[in-house]
């Protein structure tokens, strides 16, 4: 397993956000993590990429409520549950965050370069950049544009492109289709498949279950911080309770 999460628990004060979560992603896979709003999908991604721990340090300093994290996370054969967020990226575990969050005041190219911050090899950087431009020609066209003025779809492409610039082994993408028009959604999903075909493992968090299940071989269903089911899209859709209660279909 490239990524292995073993009995992960996250609590904010008394609230249990992640409850004994265990899951794994194998090299080359495209795996989805789905579930209703507030299930803890984003928190899971934030926990494995070190952001929850980072937030915990901030809260400790400001005495604004305690965060507890327990459990073991292994990536590429190494324990990462005590590695700071900015070093986890270096190992190849990269998160494309919820709500896209481009650096709005910077140009498209500057955003991409920020993604490549750790890559000091200029040549390799240029190679990755041309890969991103091949995947997202619109980013090349708009490379000098201030990213805050891009459309929602373009901002999502930029966010994915920027994460791609960090040279991921495993790319976690949090709700890329939210708030986009149907046509743009389809395009975004197509790009994600293309990235996966380039050999990059993907863990995809989504609400748009019907499309996602056509792309994946394996899925996890999360509800109230717990994995309540896993399997292929077909298997999950056959289960009436899961389909109705957790997937809203």
């Amino acid at each position, binding site marked *: 397993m490239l990524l292995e999460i073993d009995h992960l628990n996250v609590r904010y004060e008394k609230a249990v956000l992640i409850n004994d979560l265990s899951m794994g992603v194998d090299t080359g896979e495209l795996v989805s993590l789905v579930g209703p709003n507030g299930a803890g999908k984003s928190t899971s991604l934030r926990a494995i*990429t*070190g*952001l929850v721990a*980072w937030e915990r340090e*901030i*809260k400790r*300093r*400001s005495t*604004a409520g305690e965060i507890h994290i327990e459990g073991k996370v292994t990536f590429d054969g190494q324990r990462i549950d005590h590695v*700071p*967020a*900015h*070093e986890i*990226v*270096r190992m190849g575990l*990269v*998160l494309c*965050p919820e709500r896209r*969050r481009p*650096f*709005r*005041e*910077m140009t498209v190219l*500057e955003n991409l*370069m*920020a*993604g490549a*911050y*750790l890559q000091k090899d200029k040549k390799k950087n240029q190679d990755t950049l041309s890969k991103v431009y091949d995947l997202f020609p619109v980013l090349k066209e708009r490379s000098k544009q201030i990213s805050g003025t891009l459309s929602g779809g373009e901002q999502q492409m930029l966010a994915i492109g*920027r*994460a791609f610039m*960090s040279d991921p082994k495993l790319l976690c993408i949090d709700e890329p289709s939210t708030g986009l028009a149907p046509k743009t959604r389809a395009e975004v999903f197509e790009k994600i498949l293309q990235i996966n075909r380039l050999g990059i493992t993907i863990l995809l968090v989504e609400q748009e279950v019907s499309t996602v299940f056509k792309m994946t071989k394996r899925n996890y269903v999360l509800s109230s911080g717990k994995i309540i089911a896993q399997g292929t899209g077909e298997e999950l859709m056959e289960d009436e309770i899961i389909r109705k209660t957790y997937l809203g279909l």
Partner: protein
Amino acid sequence: MNIIITGLITGSMLALLAIGFSLIFGVARIVNIAHTAFYMVAGYIIYYLSIRLGLNVILSMLIAVVAVTLLGLLAYKFLIDPIREHELAVMIATIALALIFQEVTLQIFTGDYLSVYFLIKGYFIIGGNKVFYQQLLTFGVVLVILLVIWFLLMKTRLGLAIRSTAEDREVANLMGMNESRLAMITLGISVALAGVTGAVIVPLAVLSPYMWTEPLILMMAVVVLGGLGSIKGSFVAAYILGFTEALVTFLIPAGAFLKGPVALSIMILVLLIRPEGLFGIAFEEER
């Protein structure tokens, strides 16, 4: 003519101060009230080294900038960093710091007005007004420093990391940028800028232990007018205020006393009409 020269010099000085102040606010949300006090300390160090010890003035300036930067980093490490997530506590701590600098200066140098010599003497006359070479020198040096800062921020890897962290420190973290180290580096740059401002202005200024308060108010007005956290805004607003100041001083009898009130009025007006300032970002929720 005097208005233009004074406006340019005051504007440039304010730009240097405001950019430094904005930088560390943007990156670490630190409201450093002691920012202009560092500028004062630099002034006194230069005075002490060059006048009392007789060192070369330019050497004294270099030493002063380095010393003030180190002092800033020490203050950050032991005073600010431990309480960095409490914005209000940080502000109070920096007020205390400024007052400490003021009192220590008062003890060592007394409250007498002191000054340092011009680096270059002489003047020329344009349109019946004296323009001192020192004024030109100061202005030129400030422009060079502004260019260097612009280059650092816009064209280097460190600058990219600083701007990223200022915009969204969590996402910057996700790109591998070490946010707390960047905060420290930015504080160093910020205080160094305050020190440099002190160094370039000291030949034109009169030193007193209270000299940090007036530029503090002007600088805050600049930052509010330009938009909190916006470097470009600070730059433009600094010159607007610099010229306003010069106009008020020269056109209104006893206008020098009105500097502070005028700056404050501008600040309040901006806050009422356009709280995000000229170029400011309406701050988004961080997550």
